[in-house]
């Protein structure tokens, strides 16, 4: 599931005129943006570099979205028809799912023996994350459009759990800028980038124009089967009472790879033939119960597009510093 890309804000007036920002921004945001002075989240060096490039800051813009995470247990509306005995066959088309079957004869040993295991992608979790990130992003872009900005630089996004509830807040902010002497972007939709200052200057100098911030989350649930459980918990093999030797825990290795590959594919689906610059990959594993865990991988970066011929810089001169 994906979140990002410039959202459709085609009806936003790029020129707020004397009456202040239009649209459905919160009243406080409208008042702040209409005050006539600019605010910026840039550091002083980044601010200086920004002016040097002909980027005029017009305001600090931000977007928020608070999402509640539902319950995904058996019988939940989010299970989407997957059953323990589906062996992957019930997974919606295009969704990652693979099953593992007990090699020991199943129920013959014990009712607690894990005769079945499954790795499966959780598109409903990914969609909820995409909705949270995408809504916060859209709101930030809407604020930028409302003050007539051409782009948003130095974007920072954070997610955090609020209080002790099953609730996550998505927060995105950046500095809206106008490119002096340039036409408004197509559809008056501002471009966005995580970069600012000298890093942005070097990117443009190298011939790349930032298009938008791009981010995606992939979520893979792991229900361990007996072999995975024995290997991970160090329990005895039920056959002959021997310990299993050093061996790869295939179910988990594949789940880790799936989460990362899915995140990459989600992002790639938003890139067209462009480039994702400065990708940041954050993966974490959360244990829900014994043998039941979730592996999540978030991938974000700036989508950039080449606007002039490939023109590599001269080989840099190595230097040694005397001090």
């Amino acid at each position, binding site marked *: 599931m994906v979140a990002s890309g410039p959202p459709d804000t085609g009806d936003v007036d790029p020129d707020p005129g004397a009456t202040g920002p239009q649209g459905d921004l919160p009243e406080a945001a409208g008042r702040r943006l209409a005050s006539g002075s600019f605010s910026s989240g840039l550091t002083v060096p980044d601010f200086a570099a920004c002016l040097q490039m002909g980027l005029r800051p017009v305001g600090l813009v931000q977007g928020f979205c608070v999402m509640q995470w539902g319950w995904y247990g058996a019988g939940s509306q989010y299970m989407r028809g997957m059953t323990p005995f589906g062996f992957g066959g019930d997974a919606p088309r295009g969704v990652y799912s693979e099953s593992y079957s007990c090699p020991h004869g199943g129920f013959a040993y014990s009712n607690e023996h894990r005769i079945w295991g499954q790795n499966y992608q959780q598109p409903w979790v990914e969609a909820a994350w995409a909705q949270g990130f995408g809504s916060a992003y859209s709101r930030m872009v809407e604020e930028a459009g409302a003050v007539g900005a051409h782009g948003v630089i130095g974007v920072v996004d954070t997610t955090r759990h609020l209080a002790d509830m099953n609730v996550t807040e998505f927060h995105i902010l950046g500095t809206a800028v106008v490119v002096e002497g340039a036409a408004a972007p197509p559809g008056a939709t501002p471009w966005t980038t995580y970069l600012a200052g000298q890093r942005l200057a070097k990117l443009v100098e190298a011939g790349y124009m930032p298009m938008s911030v791009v981010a995606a989350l992939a979520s893979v649930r792991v229900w361990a089967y007996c072999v995975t459980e024995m290997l991970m918990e160090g329990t005895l093999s039920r056959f002959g009472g021997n310990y299993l030797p050093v061996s790869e825990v295939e179910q988990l290795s594949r789940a880790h*790879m799936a989460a990362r*590959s899915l995140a990459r594919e989600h992002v790639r689906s938003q890139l067209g033939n462009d480039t994702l610059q400065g990708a940041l990959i954050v993966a974490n594993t959360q244990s829900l119960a014994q043998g039941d865990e979730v592996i999540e991988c978030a991938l974000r970066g700036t989508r950039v597009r080449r606007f002039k011929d490939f023109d590599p810089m001269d080989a840099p*001169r190595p230097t040694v510093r005397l001090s």
Partner: protein
Amino acid sequence: MTEPIDLRAEMRLAADSLGKPAHDPPSRAVTSDLSVDEGLLLHSIGWEAVDVVFGASVVSIPPMVWTWGSGEIAPASDAHNQAVRGAAKTLGEQCSHVRGHGVVGVRVEVDVQRHHVDVELTGTAVRPVRGKDPNRAFVSDLSARDFTLLHNAGWAPIGLAFGASFVYAPRRSMGTTMRQSSQNVELTNFTEAMYAAREAGMEHMQRSALDMGAQGIVAVRVSEGPMWFANHAIGFTAWGTAVRLEAESHQYLRPEVILPLDDAVVEFEAQSLR
């Protein structure tokens, strides 16, 4: 001396390009976790990023190997080395799949638990611009900056060399413990155990480099210490990038010596007003 670039004009040109078709787009999307500087450095030697690639492997450690004993804890060392090999192999395969020549800037994450070792590798596949497909992709934890320096010096990374060793910290007999309780004395059993762990780990690493056909290993990093779940067991891990000389001889870079004339920055301290 090249002319300085008019940044304002470049920015205007870039912004105005948004309404036009893409300029010479690649045949498929490119992803990269390199910084802007690293991307530019790669371009300066005629290389480019292709795709972000991953390798992950979880390998089990049999039960009861951490209980008291002596010498190397071979199953734990084997599990560690197998997990790294597996993850590096997957990383290399992903790189080859996207026609990369190698992976640079690999982030190495290793987590040793009582019953399993988790290894996760993340990096960016790179290749020479318009280069031919390679026979075998290399894996390196060198940054793109270090890769560029190595390349300019005539060397090539071959792969990730890795070695791990876990040993028991030996017990002293009751009599020895009593005798030594009031002495300033070397605990030779501990010294020997640490020696054994370090040497075995380094040997594993060196052997893995030689198996790849490398001449040496650069940027070796080590980590060591007692295991959090078994204080009497000491782990030692060493890894680096195996390299081989590709040019006829080492190319000296002859760096220019510079003397910065900056003054130290004096910052205003608000607390001094209190």
